[in-house]
């Protein structure tokens, strides 16, 4: 079981890294989302894996899984929604403003007009 979860984290990381290194905003955002899953799952596993031991106190039950990583990951999930929404908005604004969804802003690109404004 541990092997499955660990490899899932590895797969998500690899996929996320590859997509993050793409040149357009949309795949980069998806890549960051994959990395977010990977990080959240990794944090979650710091409480170690347990089946059928949810941290809901019940009479006669004495073993529970670690609740703290769960609480931390819960807020992390919600915050990462906020962050992806901001990133998506920025990407959208950039695309609508410049009609270009490249993530790289290379100074030597021919279409780049920023250079002229630089000296002013």
């Amino acid at each position, binding site marked *: 079981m541990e092997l499955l979860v660990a490899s899932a984290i590895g797969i998500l990381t*690899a*996929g996320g890294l590859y997509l993050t290194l793409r040149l357009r905003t949309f795949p980069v955002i998806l890549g960051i989302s994959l990395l977010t899953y990977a990080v959240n799952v990794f944090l979650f596993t710091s409480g170690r894996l347990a089946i059928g031991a949810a941290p809901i106190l019940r009479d006669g039950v004495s073993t529970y899984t670690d*609740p703290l990583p769960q609480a931390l990951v*819960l807020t992390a999930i919600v915050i990462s929604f906020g962050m992806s929404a901001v990133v998506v*908005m920025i990407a959208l*604004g950039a*695309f*609508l403003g410049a009609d270009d*969804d490249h993530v790289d802003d290379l*100074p030597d690109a021919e279409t780049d007009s920023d250079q002229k404004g630089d000296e002013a």
Partner: protein
Amino acid sequence: MSLFILVALPFLGALLPGLMNSAGRSATAGVTFTVSLTAFVGLLTNLPTILEGEVVMARVDWMPLMGLNFTLMLDGLGFFFALLILGIGLLIIAYARHYLGRDDNMGQFFTYLLLFQGAMVGIVLSDNILLLIIFWELTSLSSFLLIGYWKHLPEGRQGARMALAVTAMGGLAMIAGMLILGQIVGSYDLSEILQHRDLIQADPLYVPALVLILLGCFTKSAQFPFHFWLPHAMAAPTPVSAYLHSATMVKAGIFLMARMWPVLSGTPEWFVIVTSAGLTTMVLGAVIALFKHDLKALLAFSTVSHLGLITMLLGTGTAFGAMAAVFHILNHATFKAALFMSAGIVDHAAHTRDIRRLGGLSRLMPVTFLIATLAALSMAGIPLLNGFLSKEMMLEESGRTVLFGTPWLVPALATFGSLFSAAYSFRLIGHVFLGPKRDDYPATPHDPGAGLWLPPAILVALVVLIGVAPFVVEPFVKLVTASLLGAAGVVPEAHIKIWHGLVPALFLSLIAVFGGLILLSVFKPALRLWDSTPRPEAKAIYDAIVAAAEGLARAIILPLHNGAFTRYAAIGAVTIFAAGYHAWITGTLDAPTRTMQPAGAVPIAGWLMLLGATAGMVLLHRNRLLSLILIGIVGLMVSIGFVFFSAPDLAMTQFTVEVVTIILMLLALNFLPNRTPVESSVLRRVRDAGIAVAGGVATFGLSYHFMLRDAVSTPISEFHLANSYKGGGGTNVVNVILVDFRGFDTYGEIIVLGIAALLIYALTETLLRGPVRARLLNRKPDQPRAGDTHPMMMVVLTRVLLPIVLMVGFYIFLRGHNDPGGGFIAGLIVSIAVVMQYMASGFGWTSARLRYPYHGVIGAGVLTAGLTGIGSWFVGKPFLTSDFTYVRIPPFKEFELATAMLFDLGVFLAVVGAVMLSLESFSRLARLASEVDDDHPMDIDPSREEDDADGLTSTARAGV
């Protein structure tokens, strides 16, 4: 007056001039003057204590563990400087009122000036050296603002930058020196440090500390080779030059040398560095000053020269030298500030400061002539004026100082410098005021109103008073000297008087004065000689150094930071991987302590789906809609994994967030291209795959080894499990952690979420106002639209569902404390219910029925959570302490009421508000982009009686 108020007063007062700006120039200046006057009077209330030789202390612990405390100390030396700062400040404020023109923003000027005044008072009153550094940097900043006050002048901006670069660099060095000093003594309090002369001077780090601190002092006080910034700072308005760059700020370095004198001075290192730097500066400044044609530049270099003189006196390390330094600080402040103000008057009246275009002003401006002449004669060292007294003390001291084993070196150079000093003083009088009247002044010179000449006149009155009756100030000078010397010296017996008999110093004085007269008589050939001598230009050297540093920075940064996000991402990933790899090969790994759990068919199936979806995303990411669907599968698998591994709360959160995120991405994808084109080369894709695989293998290895071993120490969640019910009154430990144990964390988190949503809202607003608006309006959909944008089936379904979903949300919220659920999840569920209304019935219909703006909902949530936390203050508990009780309302079972539930309500509202505000912002963009959007929720509604034309157009448009 309390020292805290004394320091705080100018800072607080700095708020006022800006507010008074619209009330007129006199009101603005009047308020500033009143603030300064209050501080001045407050300082004087401490005079009786100071005269008794006592020290006023005030202390508040700020960060005691770091040794940074808000400790203030007022002794004789601090009082003396504070008196100069506040006293001359008053005169400057009055002068500036009349000096600044109608176009100058007076509120801004006086705000800067008061900031500076506060910072300066802070320096001289600080007892803690870290606190002193803070004030020190504040003076550099306010000086920067004041030099660049005339923003339209390029010289002003360049001068401000140069001054900031030089003094801030020195300030950095000084911080290092002060930290070393604090480490040696074990305390950052000056009163403590000043007791440990022997300890400090015996320490091997004494020399580095000394050099670093002196770097700070020399840059601030414009000592060679850092003198060049001061003349360039003269681009500032004249009141600033008079105040900061002659009377006060440039003396901060000297103040610090005087402050540290008891512990740092008296060693050969101190003597050689300080004395030679001072002597060089004094001679160099005096020589350059003589040949400057700009009146303010002449005065600037003369200030450099006099600062050198004072530094040299402090460098000798004798008590008499210290007393002469104190006395000359006082005298220089009086005559130099008066001279700067006179220069400002001349500039104001004749519209030029070029000495070559002036001359013969004595009959046109008799009052200014009198003031400037008395001040200049004092600078030249003419008897019956105060400059003579301290200059003679300096010459006397120089006669006893032996530098580099050569007895004649110091007196000869000191006399040489004094000779040039006399010469430029005479030149100032002779070439500006004396001589024939000219008829080619740029403007007709005339004496100004009393507002401009009275401030310098008061200073000149002091010049004469001290010069004629030195015994008046002698007790005060000795008091200050005693406080400067501390335990390290005894105040000399010698009296300050005009006639000492035929002592060597008198002859040196005579040589200087008459030599100066002779030099001025041969000024023209001397100037030709000076102009033909090649000499290094300090500004050119400075510019070259700055350019070289900039080039170096560019060479290092540009390859790394070239604007390519992918490059940063790759560098970051590889660096983290390398660090992890290093840890892996150098660290050790214990044997596993946990056994691997068996995996059944269901987990393997889930794993395969996750693998397939991720692989599909990587391979098919060019089809954006497809990859969005695939990432939905990944999210679902993660949610199911959470359920499987005993985390129901997480699963519910992940699941609902997933829905919201996909809706958001779809809204964005509506505008973005549907496909990602092929751009990167195969080589590059192989490289990226390499990085990705390396990162994946690394995280796999890390988490695999991690999961098979127990935690090194007992997790703190033992405490949470044990106290969740007893202390928090809930059986869902995750929820109790969120709203109770780590409630403060959650509080911060909902604020961040709210800020993110507001940021999205602000970005949308900006986009909708800019050129994007027009582009959106003209946008043609790139794909055929659906025939019915708001299908009746969906509208009916979502409306029926709405109350049910709200009920579920309410239920999830209520049960959260004891079962999986809570504010976060309930908030997301309710958001989804509302979003469905937007999707089904359209933006116009939904937003017309919206009763509360989402910003308000976010605010209400954060406020509710915050007020719940504050509520615990009223029962004397810390912020966010929770309480609970069980109540029974007859028809129901007994149930629990907890304050944590109120807090959770805040979380709920903040989440709803934030999610809705983000999604709504996106849909506002969509609405603008010629999307079909009626006020009617359904395209076809049998119960509606509409006029045909309207219905026709909307269907017709929808069909495009």
